[in-house]
């Protein structure tokens, strides 16, 4: 195996500033309730980082099993912040799997992504405001274009993760076709039930995550199928689409609001260290929820011709546009896909070991 002596310094650029204090005692792995016999972390990954085993790190799926309850960091005899190291590894892996290389730049340069996002938002909003045609129709086309762009962006990540985590270490294309494994993968994706495997269940964190997750998924459905047409139709407060939007919007506002507060007051171990990309993520989510709810609210109250609604809707679409263009394909967002996939890849590896995996 090739050794990269600069590996640990590279990982430190993504967080994990204290990890060199680690003396490899294994307290973190032993205290971690999610660490299992077939997926043991964080100590092994810290060791791999220290000795520069780059392929061990880039093929690791364990970082995605970690939900950062922070118990390892709280009990670490060296205060080496193993939990934050796992977080840094997730950032490092996102950057590694990103074909454009932009995630890497965004992670390493702090607020650059945020400034670009703000700039792009201003530009897009200016364009939308200057558009003299039927904005409702334009918004429909824009929203319909989102899934195409996002699918291309995500496909790159997923293929790259698959290549690093399965193809390279297992020496070929392997898959698991057992329905139970596939169902479990989706179950993890939607419920993130491993959150509650943590010793001291942080229900607030899991709850806010679940709210955001469900609200956000719903928002995706609503916007990608262009279900909400506030400039063309009058919605009643309790129409089916309205109910969906209310739930999605308020779930995001509540969940995102809690997340923001926790980061502000550093109330949990997991929210002690905040990377600018984390701020961008929660604040943008919050704004999406807020602008969507406001759009529908104005429509319900004042009808589709309301001049304020026209402005707010443009803001809403502008936020969604920069979110899709600059936030979704880079940095934190992609973890939504990586976590359930890691569960799946774990099964693939086990099956490959047992010789029962589907292979090409």
């Amino acid at each position, binding site marked *: 195996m090739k050794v990269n002596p600069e590996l640990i310094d590279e990982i430190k650029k993504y967080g994990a500033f204290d990890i060199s204090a680690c003396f*490899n005692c294994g307290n973190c792995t*032993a*205290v971690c309730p999610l*660490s299992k016999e077939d997926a043991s972390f964080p100590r092994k990954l810290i060791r791999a980082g220290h000795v520069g085993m780059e392929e061990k790190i880039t093929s690791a799926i364990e970082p995605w099993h970690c939900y950062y309850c922070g118990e390892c960091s*709280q009990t670490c005899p060296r205060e080496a912040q193993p939990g934050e190291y796992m977080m840094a590894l997730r950032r490092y892996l996102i950057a590694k799997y990103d074909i454009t290389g932009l995630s890497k730049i965004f992670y390493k340069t702090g607020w650059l992504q945020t400034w670009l996002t703000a700039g792009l938002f201003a530009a897009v909003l200016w364009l939308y405001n200057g558009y003299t045609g039927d904005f409702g129709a334009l918004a429909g086309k824009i929203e319909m274009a989102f899934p195409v762009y996002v699918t291309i962006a995500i496909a790159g990540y997923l293929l790259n993760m698959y290549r690093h985590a399965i193809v390279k270490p297992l020496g070929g294309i392997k898959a698991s076709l057992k329905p139970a494994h596939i169902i479990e993968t989706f179950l993890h994706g939607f419920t993130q039930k491993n959150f509650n495997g943590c010793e001291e269940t942080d229900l607030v964190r899991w709850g806010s995550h679940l709210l955001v997750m469900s609200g956000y998924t719903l928002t995706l459905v609503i916007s990608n199928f262009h279900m909400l047409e506030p400039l063309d139709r009058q919605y009643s407060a309790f129409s089916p689409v309205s109910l969906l939007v209310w739930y999605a919007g308020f779930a995001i506002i509540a969940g995102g609001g809690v997340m923001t507060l926790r980061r502000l007051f550093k109330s949990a171990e997991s929210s002690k260290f905040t990377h600018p990309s984390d701020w961008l993520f929660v604040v943008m989510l919050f704004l999406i929820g807020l602008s969507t709810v406001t759009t529908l609210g104005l429509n319900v109250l004042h009808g589709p011709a309301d001049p304020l609604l026209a402005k707010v809707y443009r803001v809403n679409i502008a936020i969604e546009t920069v979110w899709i263009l600059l936030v979704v394909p880079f940095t934190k967002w992609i973890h939504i896909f990586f976590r359930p996939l890691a569960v799946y890849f774990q099964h693939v590896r086990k099956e490959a070991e047992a010789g029962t995996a589907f292979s090409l």
Partner: protein
Amino acid sequence: MSDMEKIEVDALVVGSGIAGLQSALDMADQGLSVVIVEKRPSIGGKMISLSKVFPTLDCASCITTPRMASVSHHPRITTLTYSTVDAIKRENGVFTAAVTRKPRYIDEKECISCKRCEDVCPVYLPDEYEEGMGAKKAITIPFTNAIPQLPVMDPEHCIRCGACARACPKDCIDFLQQPAPVEIKAKAVILATGYETTPMTAKKQYGMAKLPNVISPMAAERLLAPHGPYGRVLRPSDGMVPGSIAYVQCAGSRDKSIGVPYCSRVCCMYAIKQAILLSGSLPIADITIYYMDIRAFGKGYEQFYNNARAMGINFVKAKVARITEDEKHNPILRIERQEGSSAPEEVKHELVVLSQGLRPGDDVSRYGLGAELNDFGFVKLSDETVSSAVTAGAGVFAAGVSKGPRDIPDSVVDAGSAAMEAISYIRKL
């Protein structure tokens, strides 16, 4: 107060553990007059409650008791037991210490140590000398080889039945005794304040002292001592002879999360010693030591460690992260086994000893002697490369663990060095 007891000596020694005893003897044998102040009812410190010492497996009390006897019979040494040092001032090169004798509720001059008061007392209490495992009376001589052989009454738990007063042949029970101030004038002070072990509650994940079969190493010493609470090794919860015993190393050391980042030095060795003694008293028991590194730091210690390995004691490189128990109070340790497959694992034992660390026995900075403390509360030496006893305070010297964790041989050696420094300081005055 006009009738306040006043003592004038050459040197004051605070603490009567093995370091305090040794430095007092060394100074007194050189012709100096010495007073020792000890907060506990007996001199002898921690060492007198140990079973054996590493690496020679000599009997601890066989080494300590002769020194205790020499000190108590020495014509130039005065011992004040059950007394606390409240303040020490230095003026014109003379130290004045304000000491309080705590009331034993007996007349110390009249008592003939016949123990009749103890025999008739109807109140049984957990014996702290046996780490709570045995029972003692509310009026009791602290332990069999205590010096002085004077009983102490526990006023909190005494029921004032008067049985002891009626039984005492010398009529020396005094329920109304008050704390008595003592003024000590000395030319030099030796701090031999020793250590306390880190508490059983130091690490939240280790059961917070609520698991009956997770015990302290001092309790294990008492279990192993020939005159211990049960006379044999039994586990506290049900009196079973444990068939599997584990040592959790670094349970109070090298852990920033509990505020003790330093290595306490002696824990590896006392755990190995206890493991060897245990395999003597329980020949078929499995004994496991979970360690981060074994630090066998002194002469013959590595040999001692290798002997333990050869005897079949298991050494597992793993930091214990969590201790729980099953319904039978068998402790369960969660570890990561680093050898082989390297996976988190839960291991059950029948008795677990937490190898607690050492922390300062007293905050000597409150005396205002000018002796500085290091980051961890131990006495700081003015220049370690020049002297192992001289502190920043003029005339103030430090001996034993008051300066930082060390074992018994080292404490004895540098108690001698503290005595030498004090003597030469006094001669130059």
